[in-house]
């Protein structure tokens, strides 16, 4: 039936968007064990920056997205360097500071961009829909899948195959030992946080043609990112990828087939998974 096919394809595309959204969070949490609750605000900030670059300064979409990502990455670096670094291990302080910053970022966005929602045009070349038989698939959303896969591959390559990645993983597994062998762990953590924040900002712009940009975007998106990361297994990038697609399927089929349970389609499965497997689908078992 065509409805099922449409939902199935949209599950994959939504999964792609969710991966882009949550990759940054997964990276930071997985490597630095910091639950970066500013993540939603960074996503929103990237979307606002990107929208301004396109609408006000007439930059091409992809350039705007990359610039937005870089700006947010720089901001993330500042947060890590001056605030988070002194809080290593103190989870409560990390929660307080990341939520405090997210309040400030949200209000800053409201101040600068006002409360009106901003629609971002789909980048030229990806406008419109692909017609396959009687079915219609928005081209931009299909492109999101491709981008998600590319980024996933790039991250995996970075962590698994490069020296930088090896140093990062060493710094995470045993920071003392890593320092002894000469790895600048503090600088690595800043780089990781920048990367995670930059991904969030870039994802915000990637999502903007679909989600638009509006106050409250941060609060709407953060729970989704958390669900994906936790379901997939915090800290596991393949887990986040698979988790994204699972959430995509749950979201689409759940909302369409069980509209009475629309509020519960994500959190009920999440509770079930966590109760049966607290480490998530791909996480390492907790002793």
């Amino acid at each position, binding site marked *: 039936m065509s*409805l099922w096919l*449409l*939902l199935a394809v*949209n599950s994959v595309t*939504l999964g792609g*968007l969710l991966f882009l959204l949550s990759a940054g969070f997964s990276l930071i949490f997985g490597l630095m064990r910091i639950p970066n609750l500013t993540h939603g605000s960074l996503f929103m900030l990237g979307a606002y920056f990107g929208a301004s670059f396109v609408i006000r300064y007439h930059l091409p979409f992809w350039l705007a997205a990359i610039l937005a990502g870089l700006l947010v990455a720089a901001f993330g670096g500042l947060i890590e360097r001056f605030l988070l670094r002194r809080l290593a291990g103190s989870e409560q302080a990390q929660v307080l500071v990341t939520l405090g910053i997210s309040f400030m970022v949200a*209000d800053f966005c*409201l*101040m*600068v961009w*006002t*409360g*009106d*929602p*901003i*629609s971002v*045009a*789909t980048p030229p070349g990806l406008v*419109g*829909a692909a*017609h396959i038989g009687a079915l*219609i698939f*928005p081209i*931009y*959303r299909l492109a999101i899948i491709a981008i998600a896969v590319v980024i996933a591959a790039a991250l995996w390559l970075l962590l698994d195959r490069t020296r930088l990645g090896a140093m990062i993983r060493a710094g995470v597994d045993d920071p003392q030992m890593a320092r002894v062998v000469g790895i600048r762990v503090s600088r690595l953590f800043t780089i990781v946080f920048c990367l995670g924040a930059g991904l969030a900002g870039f994802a915000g712009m990637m999502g903007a*043609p*679909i*989600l*638009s940009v*509006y*106050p*409250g975007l941060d*609060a*709407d*998106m953060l729970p*989704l990112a958390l669900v994906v990361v936790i379901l997939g297994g915090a800290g596991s990038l393949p887990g986040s990828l698979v988790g994204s697609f699972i959430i995509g399927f749950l*979201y*689409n*089929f*759940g*909302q*369409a087939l069980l*509209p009475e349970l*629309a*509020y519960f389609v994500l959190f009920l499965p999440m509770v079930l998974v966590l109760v049966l497997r607290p480490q998530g689908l791909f996480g390492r078992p907790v002793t």
Partner: protein
Amino acid sequence: MGIRVNRRKFLAGTAAVAGVASFPMPAIAQNKPVKIGLLTVKTGPLAAGGVQMEAGVVTLLKQRNYMMAGRKVEFISADTGGNPAGAKTKAQELVERDQVDVILGPLAAFELLAISDYVAESKTPMLSLAAAEDVTQRKPNPYFVRASATSSQAMKPLADYAAKEMKLKTVATISEDFAFGYEQMGGFQQVFEDNGGRVMKKLWPPLVTADYTPYLVQLTGVDAVVQGFAGSNPVKFMKQYSDQGLKLPVLGGETAGDDAQLKSFGDEAIGMISACPYTIDLDTPVNKRFIADFQKEADNLPGFYAAGLYVNGQVVEAALKATGGKTSDRPALIKALRAVQLTETPRGPVKFDHFGNVIGNIFIRRIEKGKDGKLTNRTLKTYTNVGQFWPYEEAKFLAQPVYSRDFPPLKS
């Protein structure tokens, strides 16, 4: 732009904290200013509408030089944060601390329901935009006046237009899963089906829905789609709607096609029909002046929220003129408010029924591209003298339950 201190003077506030408010004041009633309080939302997702509300009031006050019926007007604006507890606290602030004579606002129905009893008990007249139907129907608040519309007041003429002029036979409705959505769609369904149409399916995405696609793919097999999204959701919905390749005509409510939000849409919104108690292209001198002054105040076009509050302000002014400027006799004040009849407002003539709800114009308009390349609304038809029960008789309407997710039921 640092931290901006708003209209309320800081010193006055500190003085109040120190207990000055408890000092006895001489009774120079006529020289005391009229205090108008506004409950609005300036932070969070509802901020766009809230900012418009405040600007609408300020536009009127500036036009009148902060004078009404010979008395000076003191205007106090309170940010409720868009949640019921905040609305209650700010309502208490306005009533107990600032001792306002009249409250304008709040914005949202869930805020109104939290404070309605309290405000009525304190005998403070309240003029709100919040569309909750029962506040002027089955659970009426005697101190309440609504110069905008109930949730379904604009949707029922829209249904009439859809059935009779657009000759639509079947529609699907989609709106957020909360009372404002139920009441809008309920009103549409009842009138549409009474005119030979049929609602085939009703979809209710949660208030916070990132991706409408699971719902969009179900919008098939009908002549048109009727939506009542509010806040920033209309922009997201229309974009996703057109991206999904859907070509069915879209009919929307007052928040869906709000003039102030048109600048946020892309070309995908062109052709959307909406029904609203206000329209920007109403060619009357008072509306033109309102739009011009509003643009100076807010650097934006006015929409439903701004016009609603401007008209509320006009109603207060007219009532004050009727009571000779007196505000101490509250029952007389609310009587005067409900007795107001105006012809020169940005939305045209207004008067009130015995529940305090407005009877006025409803405009059916279509989004088009203006000569300047920007999107604007063009009025197709005006329904006049539309009250909250239109086209039904009051007794019959009140006998049926309030519109909800299941009422009216889908015809099987």
